[in-house]
């Protein structure tokens, strides 16, 4: 383990929650059922794959799990505690971090500041936040770009900064929304090495949304498949690979 990643100032505790649960979530947008009765449980030591065709409801579910979308019915539980009414910043303070499909860096700020902001939001001092941000950037391999303005970064680096920002102060869970979208196979491979290390390095559960089936099958401990807002399959990679519903959903998408 790399100690610099875990050196937290005294008085600042790492998030402790052991499981993140979605319980019968329903999300309706003016009549459109984006999610219908989906339940899942992510545990602290696993990589949990969330897959499904475009528009399946994956991002909407992540929004529910991070406080950005209030479910029409159903609840999100963190270590058994009902999170109803929590704002997004409270979710982060309680140890649920995320990245965004669109990157969403603070474009006018430096790369180091992008990461520092989370550390400040979580209560670190200016100096401690800077040191912690540098350790996180070294971890994703971007220490030499700390002073670059975030808006000038290439796409692949943007994703890494997003992950560094999410991993500040070792959250209990991190939800990665298509972190490898648009990357070449080699870049994607590289990124997956970083992601696979998260559960051990940070004692942090990972929920990974990714379209590349090869990648998903290779890195996930368990997989949950959505289609049209419904759960169509869940289980181990081997079970998902041979599941008739999954095969037809993906064939339907390609055809």
């Amino acid at each position, binding site marked *: 383990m790399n100690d610099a990643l875990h050196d937290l100032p005294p008085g600042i505790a790492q998030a402790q929650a052991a499981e993140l649960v979605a319980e019968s979530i329903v999300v309706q947008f003016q009549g459109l059922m984006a999610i219908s009765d989906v339940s899942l449980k992510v545990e602290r030591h696993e990589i949990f794959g969330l897959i499904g065709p475009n528009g399946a409801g994956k991002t909407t579910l992540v929004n529910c799990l*991070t*406080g*950005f979308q209030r479910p029409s019915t159903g609840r999100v539980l963190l270590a058994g505690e009902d999170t109803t009414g929590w*704002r*997004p*910043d409270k979710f*982060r*303070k309680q140890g649920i*971090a*995320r990245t*965004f499909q669109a990157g*969403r*860096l*603070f*474009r*006018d*700020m430096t790369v*180091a*500041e*992008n990461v*520092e*902001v*989370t550390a*400040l*939001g*979580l209560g670190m*001092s*200016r*100096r401690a*936040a*800077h040191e912690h941000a*540098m350790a996180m*950037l070294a971890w994703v391999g971007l*220490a*030499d*770009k*700390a*002073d*670059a303005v975030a808006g*000038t970064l290439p796409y692949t680096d943007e994703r890494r900064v997003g992950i560094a*920002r*999410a991993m500040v102060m070792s959250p209990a869970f991190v939800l990665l929304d298509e972190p490898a979208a648009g990357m070449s196979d080699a870049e994607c491979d590289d990124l997956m090495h970083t992601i696979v290390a998260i559960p051990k390095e940070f004692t942090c559960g990972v929920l990974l949304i990714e379209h590349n089936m090869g990648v998903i099958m290779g890195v996930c401990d368990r997989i949950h498949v959505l289609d049209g807002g419904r759960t169509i399959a869940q289980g181990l990679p081997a079970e998902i690979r041979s599941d008739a519903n999954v095969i037809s959903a993906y064939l339907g998408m390609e055809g």
Partner: protein
Amino acid sequence: MKSGTRPSLVRRFWPLVALCLVVTAIVALGSLGNDELQVTITEMMIRLVVVVGIYLFIGNSGILSFGHIGFMCIGAYAAAWATVDPTWKQMMLTGLPDFLQNNQYGFLPAVAGGGLLAAFVALLLGSAIMRLSGIAGSIATFAFLAIVQSVYSNWESVTAATSSIIGVPTVVGPWVAWLFAIGALVLAYVFQISRFGLMLRASRDDEVAAKSSAVGIVKVRLIAFVVSAFIVGVAGALYAHFLGILTADTFYLSLTFVTLAMLVVGGVGSLTGAVTGVIVVTVVVEVLRHMEAGVAVGATNLHLPQGSQEIGLGIIMALVMIFRPSGLARGREVPWPFTPAARRAKVPAV
């Protein structure tokens, strides 16, 4: 400097030092001039306090506020209530509470009171509107300006309404105003590089990402709003003690327009922009004002029509928006001058 090392203290505060030097130089040069120039310089310093105060909120939060001149009004009247002669107050401002009506306070307590009352009002108003994003929040600040205007121009027993408060001691000259300008610059810069400044600027760049970064954006916005209103309230108190006479319509649309024009022309993204805007717009307005009054060319007296100031200012704003939308300073602070040219060229390329 190695990538990612924290810059030294001197270097971190360099933009502030540079701006303070420029402002000091202007006042020092101005103090050598005639009375008219002294008045111009004093007014410029007071406007600098206003614009820096407005910048602290708008620049860091990205939320446009049309209401700050309302805080200036509140600060100006509060200070005047404290320093005007009690015999006049007992006659004209019968609605004032006893401690104001029957006493006369010094300049400094009056200024502090003006700032604090504005800050307190900002705390109440901000608690209600800081969760609004985008245009809704800006419109609410405009409504606030209109309310302040209407209350202060009608509340006879407290503000003397249309008959003005007179006899405010005129103790503010160039150097007094300068002192407050420096204070405003220091406060704004320290806020900007503080943890709250950084979190607020993150919410300006991307509100959603800031929330996911554990930033309580309502709280950081509110802190900035209150500090910013305090500075503008103080500027109002200074203005009262510069003018000597207070009427509510001093603090309405045209002052709002001029101060926002200063901020936009200089560039809302940096403190350097705020200061640049105040200097440039003041110079332009002064030149146009002189030309309105008339310039003698031989036997004829050429002069621009009345209203040329506003039109000229509008044209300049439009030109800046077209050719340099992020303002004259382009959202940057005064750069550190001691980086070797070779290295400096490398920096943007990282």
